C-alpha cells in the first residue's frame, strides 16, 4: 500500500463528494446550498492540487490540470457570491444563486474527471 496514493485518493474523492453535496438541490434556492460546504470543497480541492505539484508522470500532469480547473471554478463561484453579497450588497437572488451553483457544477465535472483518471491509473497499475 502506498500511503501517498491513499492520501491523494482521499482528498480527490473528498473534493468530489463535498462538491457534489454543495451542488445537489434546487439550482436557484439558497437554502439548499450551504456556504460551509463550498468553503470545504474549495480547501480540499486546493490541497488535492498541491499534492500533485511536481509530479512528472503523464497521468500526474493530467490530474494536476483537472484539479486546477476545479479550483478555478470553485474560486469563481466563491467570488461571485462574495461580490454580490458584500460589494453590491444585494440579497441572494435566485439568478445569482443559480450562477454560483452552476459554476460549482463545472467544478464537479472536473473533480469527477480526476476521480475517473485516478481509477484508470489504479486499474492499469494492477494489471
Amino acid at each position, binding site marked *: 500500500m502506498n500511503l501517498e496514493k491513499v492520501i491523494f485518493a482521499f482528498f480527490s474523492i473528498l473534493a468530489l463528494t463535498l462538491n457534489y453535496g454543495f451542488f445537489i438541490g434546487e439550482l436557484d434556492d439558497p437554502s439548499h446550498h450551504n456556504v*460551509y460546504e463550498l468553503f470545504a470543497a474549495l480547501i480540499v480541492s486546493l*490541497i488535492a492540487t498541491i*499534492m500533485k*505539484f*511536481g509530479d*512528472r508522470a503523464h497521468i500526474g500532469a493530467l490530474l494536476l490540470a483537472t484539479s486546477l480547473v476545479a479550483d478555478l471554478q470553485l474560486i469563481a463561484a*466563491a467570488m461571485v457570491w462574495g461580490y454580490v453579497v*458584500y460589494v453590491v450588497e444585494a440579497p441572494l437572488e435566485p439568478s445569482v444563486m443559480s450562477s454560483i451553483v452552476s459554476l460549482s457544477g463545472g467544478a464537479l465535472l472536473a473533480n469527477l474527471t480526476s476521480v475517473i483518471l485516478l481509477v484508470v491509473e489504479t486499474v492499469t497499475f494492477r494489471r
Partner: protein
Amino acid sequence: MHNVISLVLRRMRLPLIILISTYAISVVGLTLIPGIDDQGNPWRMDFFHAIYFVSFLGSTIGFGEIPYPFTGAQRMWTTFTIYAAVVSWLYAIGTILTVIQDQGFRRVLAFQSFARKVRRLQEPFYIVCGYGDASRLLVHELSERRIHCVVVEKDREKIEELAVEDLPDYVPGLSEDATNSDTLITAGLNRPNCRGVIALTGDDHSNLTIAITSKLLAPDVQVICQSDSKDSAANMASFGTDHIIDPFEIFASRFAMMFHSPSMYLVYEWMTAVYGSPLSEFKRPPTGTWVLCGFGRFGKAVREYIAIEGVKTRLIEADTELTGAPLDTIEGRGTEANTLLEADIQDAVGIIAGTDNDANNLSVLITARYLNPGLFTAARQNQQKKTPIFKAADIDLIMQPGTIVAQYILGLILAPLLGDFFRLTRDQNEEWANVLVSRIAGVVAEITPETWELDISRLQAPAVFDSLIRRNRVQLKDICTNPKNSAELLPCVPLLIKRDKVAMLLPDMEEFLQRGDQILFCGRQESTYQIRYVVNDQQALHYIQTGIDRPGGILWRWITKAQ
C-alpha cells in the same frame, strides 16, 4: 536532469498544504464563534470578512478588530490563529530558502542555463574539456578571433575563474565531468554546428574517454586530444581521434631540430606562434654533453630525440626505480651542488631542468649556472602563473606545455593545412628551410606571421571561381598582388596548395589555380584582408591581371566598347 519548477514545487508540497489548512481552520473558526455587533445583538462573522481578517493577520499587518470589536472567545481564537499563521509562513519561506541554497538545486539551475546558451549558439563552435593552462590560452585566442567555444570543467573554481575572465566573446562554462556522455551532449556534441571536441583535462584516461565518446556519438566531429604517454596516444589513434598532441614530444622534437636545423626550427616556431608576438630569436644550443635533470615523460622524450642528433646526456633523477632510469643515472634531485658536480657539470655544455616541480627546476638551473656560468640553460615550466619568475631567471629556453598545446591546437583550427605542411617539411633539408625563413622574414617586419587558408570555392573566392568557370586563367601571383598597385606583391608567402588530395609545397607564383584548390598562406595580417578583397571582386582581379581598370556599369562598358 530535472525540471527546476517541478523540483521546487515538489519540495513546497507540505509547506503549502500546512499553510492552506491553517488558513482554512482559522477562517472556519472565525465564522463559527458567536460575536456581538455594535447594537449588542448576537452576530457571526461571514466568510468574506473572516478571509479578509485572517489574510491581514497572517501577514502580521493587523488592521484591528473588524467590523465590530471582538468578544473574549473571538480574541482567544485570534491569538491561536496569529501563532499558527506565523509558524506556517516561517516554515514555507524557510523551505523555499533551503531549496534555493541547495547545492543540487543550484547545479540543476547552472546546468539548464548552460544547456540553453548552447542551444542558442547558431554559429560553429568548439567544445573545450578541461580549463587548465593550455585551455585558458586556447579559449583566449579563439574568443579573440570570434570563434565560439564552450568549456566543460570538473572543478567549479576554474569555471568561476572563466566567468570573471574578460573575454571578447562570451564563453559559457559548465562544472560537470566531461567524461560523462550526457555532459558532452548538453555541451552540444550532437549539434550540427559543433566543429570539434578538444580534450585537455590533464588526465590521459579522461581525455581518452572523451575522445571515444565523441567519436562514437558524433563521428564527423573533429576530436583533438592531449596525451602524455605513447600508450594512450596509440589507443586514441586506434579509434580515429583526429589529432593527438603530446607537448613533451613536440618540444623534444623541436629542441632536437635546434641542433641540426635552426631554420627549420624557426619555421615551426613561427607557424604555430600567436600572431603579434615579436619574432623570436634563439640561441643555438651547443653540441656536447648535456646534463638532464628528471627522467619523467619529459626527460625521456628529450633524451630520445637529442640522442638522434648525437648529443650525449648525463641523467640526474631522484627516483631511479620508478622512472626506470638507466644504470649510470646519478641519484638525487639536482638542486644541490654535490649532485651536479657528480654529474660533471663543469665540463657539460648545457643543462635541462625537466622535473615536474617548477621551484626545483629553477633551483637546479641557478645552482648549475653558479658552478658553470657558460652553460646553456633549458627549463620545463609546468605552471603558467610562474612565467614572471622564469622570465626573471634569464633562461635560454623555456618549455611551457600549456603554450605548446594551445598554439598547436590553434594552428590546427585556424589552418588545418598546417598538418600537411609540417608533414611535407619533414622531408626537406636545412637549405630549403633557410630560403623559406628569409622569404618569410622579408615580408613580416618584426612580428611573427599570421597563417591562414583560402579555398578557391564559390563561397570564399567568388571572383576567382567565376573566372575559372569562364575558362579564364588565374595565376597564384594574381591573387597575391596589391589591388591598388598591380606591380606590387602583397607581404605574404603561399606555403602550400592542396589539389585533389595532393599537396604542393611552396607553389610557384606562376602556378595556375584550379577550382577546389586549398591554399595555405603566411604573412602579415593586412594581406589577409587584401587577398580576400581581390578574390571577391571581379574588377580588382581584372585590374591586376590586365593593368586596366575596367568600367563596372553596363552603360560605361557599352560606351568604352563603342569607342
